[in-house]
């Protein structure tokens, strides 16, 4: 061989322009629900779309004895049962299954990691994965630092992969990343003892959603919106993440979590930062995440004012959702009869920067609300002067631009239009763009997108340590105050309603109201 070649000349210009490097994907918690329901179907979809590298294999790691055959059956069952599998191709499934292996071991047992290392070396030689490893920790967050420490102890966390100079090691972790600011800082510090920040991929699957990414495209590829995307034209912003479901069978988990940790600290602040961020210079991981984090850091601390002026909590009682009776939160399995865990929260946030000074961001999320809907609504200021008679314009509302995240993904712009007829009557109409009516291809699931990005080494859509800590710093005072104040009277909203009356008052005090969704 006369010379080495660094770039693959055959890749340029093809549809898959950035190839994933050869790698092994090792899933900790391989017997768990997330692996079967989300991760394995997502990996299959990537294989079916020929987006995994040819030199690729999957290793399941968990305590439960299963063997290769058992793990392969999990893959097949997951693909069969998943609603996210688009094309079922038996030959792809078989080919992927042949590359799936299972190693049984206790996450706390050093010997299990030594075995894992030996097995990974053999798979590496067999599949040609160049020493590249992605460790996906689909486990409780309390195990993260212990697993990373054990991987480090056996030499599996080297930034350059499994002992090979060209390789890489990446660690994927799921939210919740910490329970509060102190635990998040401790967890970051623990993990960063053994791996560097650019090896850690903190998943918030919301960022993997096509429609969430479309917020960026909408804002930064259309010249007509950015000039009015500021305090001069925007009256306020409302963000809603509403669920009809209760807590299902996750009573014990939810008692420890609540709506603030489950939604507000992560998904909600992600959405808010995408709406409010400055245009990044580029969409590389550093520029993009820098701008996102700047927004969260610019939010006025929620405890700067009396908390009740800016934050409302709620918990659902019995009611009816979607035509069926629903029990109250305190009647759910695993929930204390005197629980004060919030299932609803609404915040009024102020972003202290030049663009957004004085523009409130009202954000709300709750369980057992009347509709499952996630949307961002930008309410524009009213026209400065209306040259019509008062009776003609009474029904006119300000312009609203609503970005619907789910379901029925799309964008709606509300504006006033003349009602046909001899008199000058104005009615607000909605101009609707529906994703589903325009793009027929089915979306990739968020996990597909994020696993693929991790394989490519692209951290853009993953949380960074300082971002996670900034988000906790914002909600921590609220959590502390609410957890300390046990005098709250719960339940304070019936299942199937839009939350407690105090949430309506939060806006009413400012002369506004929540959008009827």
């Amino acid at each position, binding site marked *: 061989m006369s010379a080495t070649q660094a770039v693959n000349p055959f890749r340029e*210009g*093809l549809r*898959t322009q950035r190839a994933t490097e050869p790698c092994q994907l090792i899933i900790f918690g391989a017997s768990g629900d997330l692996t079967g329901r989300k991760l394995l179907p997502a990996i299959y979809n990537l294989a079916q779309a020929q987006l995994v590298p040819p*030199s690729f294999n999957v290793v399941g790691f968990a305590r439960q004895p299963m063997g290769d055959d058992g793990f392969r059956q999990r893959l097949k069952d997951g693909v069969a049962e998943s609603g996210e599998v688009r094309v079922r191709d038996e*030959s792809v499934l078989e080919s992927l299954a042949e590359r799936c292996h299972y190693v049984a071991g206790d996450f706390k047992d050093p010997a299990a990691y030594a075995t894992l290392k030996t097995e990974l070396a053999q798979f590496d030689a067999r599949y040609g994965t*160049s020493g590249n490893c992605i460790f996906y920790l689909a486990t409780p967050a309390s195990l993260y630092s212990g697993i990373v420490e054990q991987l480090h102890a056996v030499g599996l966390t080297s930034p350059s992969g499994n002992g090979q100079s060209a390789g890489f090691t990446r660690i994927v972790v799921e939210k919740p990343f910490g329970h509060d600011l102190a635990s998040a800082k401790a967890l970051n510090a623990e993990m960063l003892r053994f791996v560097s920040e650019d090896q850690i991929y903190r998943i918030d699957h919301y960022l993997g959603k096509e429609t969430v990414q479309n917020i960026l495209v909408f804002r930064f590829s259309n010249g007509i919106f950015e000039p009015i995307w500021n305090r001069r034209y925007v009256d306020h912003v409302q963000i809603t993440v509403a669920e009809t479901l209760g807590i299902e069978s996750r009573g014990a988990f939810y008692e420890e979590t609540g709506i603030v940790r489950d939604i507000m600290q992560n998904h909600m602040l992600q959405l808010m930062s995408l709406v409010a961020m400055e245009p990044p210079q580029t969409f590389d991981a550093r520029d993009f995440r820098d701008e996102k984090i700047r927004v969260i850091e610019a939010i006025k601390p929620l405890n700067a004012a009396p908390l009740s002026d800016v934050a409302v909590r709620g918990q659902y009682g019995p009611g009816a959702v979607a035509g069926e009776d629903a029990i109250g939160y305190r009647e759910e399995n695993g929930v204390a009869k005197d629980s004060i865990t919030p299932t609803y929260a609404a915040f009024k946030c102020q972003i202290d920067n030049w663009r957004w000074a004085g523009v409130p961001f009202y954000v709300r999320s709750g369980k057992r609300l009347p509709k499952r809907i996630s949307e961002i609504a930008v309410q524009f200021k009213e026209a400065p002067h209306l040259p019509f008679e008062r009776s003609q314009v009474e029904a006119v509302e300000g312009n609203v631009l609503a970005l619907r995240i789910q379901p029925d993904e799309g964008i709606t712009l509300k504006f006033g239009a003349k009602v046909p007829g001899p008199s000058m009557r104005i009615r607000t109409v909605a101009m609707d763009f529906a994703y*589903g009516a*325009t793009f027929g291809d*089915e979306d990739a699931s968020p996990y597909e997108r994020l696993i693929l990005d991790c394989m490519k080494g692209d951290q853009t859509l993953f949380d960074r340590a300082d971002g996670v800590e900034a988000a906790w710093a914002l909600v921590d005072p609220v959590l502390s105050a609410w957890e300390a104040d046990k005098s709250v009277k719960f339940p304070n909203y019936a299942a199937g309603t839009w939350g407690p009356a105090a949430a309506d008052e939060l806006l009413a005090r400012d002369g506004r109201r929540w959008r009827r969704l």
Partner: protein
Amino acid sequence: MSLKLDLPPTFTPVEVGAIEDDLAARWHTATRDGAAPAAHSSTLNLIVCVEDAAAAGEVSKVVDRLAATHPIRSLTIVSDELADDRRVAAWLGAGCAPAPAAQICSEEITLLVNPDALELNVSTVEGLLAGDLPAYFYWRGAAPTGDPLFAGLARLADKVIVDSVRFGDGPAALDTVRRLLNHRSYRFGVADLNWERTAPWREAVAACFDDPSVLALLPSLDRASVDFAGGSSPAQRPSARALLVAGWLASREARLRNRIRVRATALQELGSGRVVQVSLSSSQTMAQLALERRSSPTGIGATARDASGHTIRMWSFPASTLGEAELIHRCIDAPARDPLLEAALHHE
């Protein structure tokens, strides 16, 4: 008019001048009855030109498949010398794709034209294009060199799509594509369905070289071969697809230029002209990357060997045969000019 088009029963005859009103009424009714969403999108115009009445039904099926994923306005031009040369006959179909893509709604217009009435035909099509949307023109016929209807309709198009298999499938077919590409007036250039058929081979070769250990072999690989199915009696003339793959290899790696052999293999079970094997090898050592078509499961198998001839990697790439609608889909989804095709034709 004695000509009869084999169109689906959902198509109804309509006067050309009434098409827009008819469409508006159809959407109004469909929305009121819940058969269509309140707002329907449209992303592009697709003009399809076929050379005989018998193909109209066939094209309608292709457009239907395409319409399941693209909200389009399609204008199928059936050019037949027996058609009336003083008026254009039209049929209209519009509706929404069946679930799960039920929100995707399309408008399908079929026009029967006499090729001699050029001005009438082109102005009719121009008047029916959905405004301010890109127009893709799929010429589903033989080499259009000198064809006035092709020239007239291509003038309306942002991108021209052809299938060089219909041009005779050989070097001459690619000459025609090359000539079309030289017409710089099409904003998005020219696409060739036959080029899209080679995509699985190009993707597979690229995927093999994504592996660093195989990429390390590349400097020693200085010759290549592309084998194609030549039918029961291997033709002397190389197939367009094989030439395109060879041109692409040469355009990507200068070392291979003038060192690629294109040869026919006697294979009766495969359609003539299909690529069956691609190989890059070393003239000095036993290093080689060989890819070959496999039938069970359908796909491409690949093997990389090092300088000593030892196998270092083996892969299997699933690859299903793409239908006409899927190939057009690929051309539409990449609206820009295709520099790879242009380079492949340059080096072919």
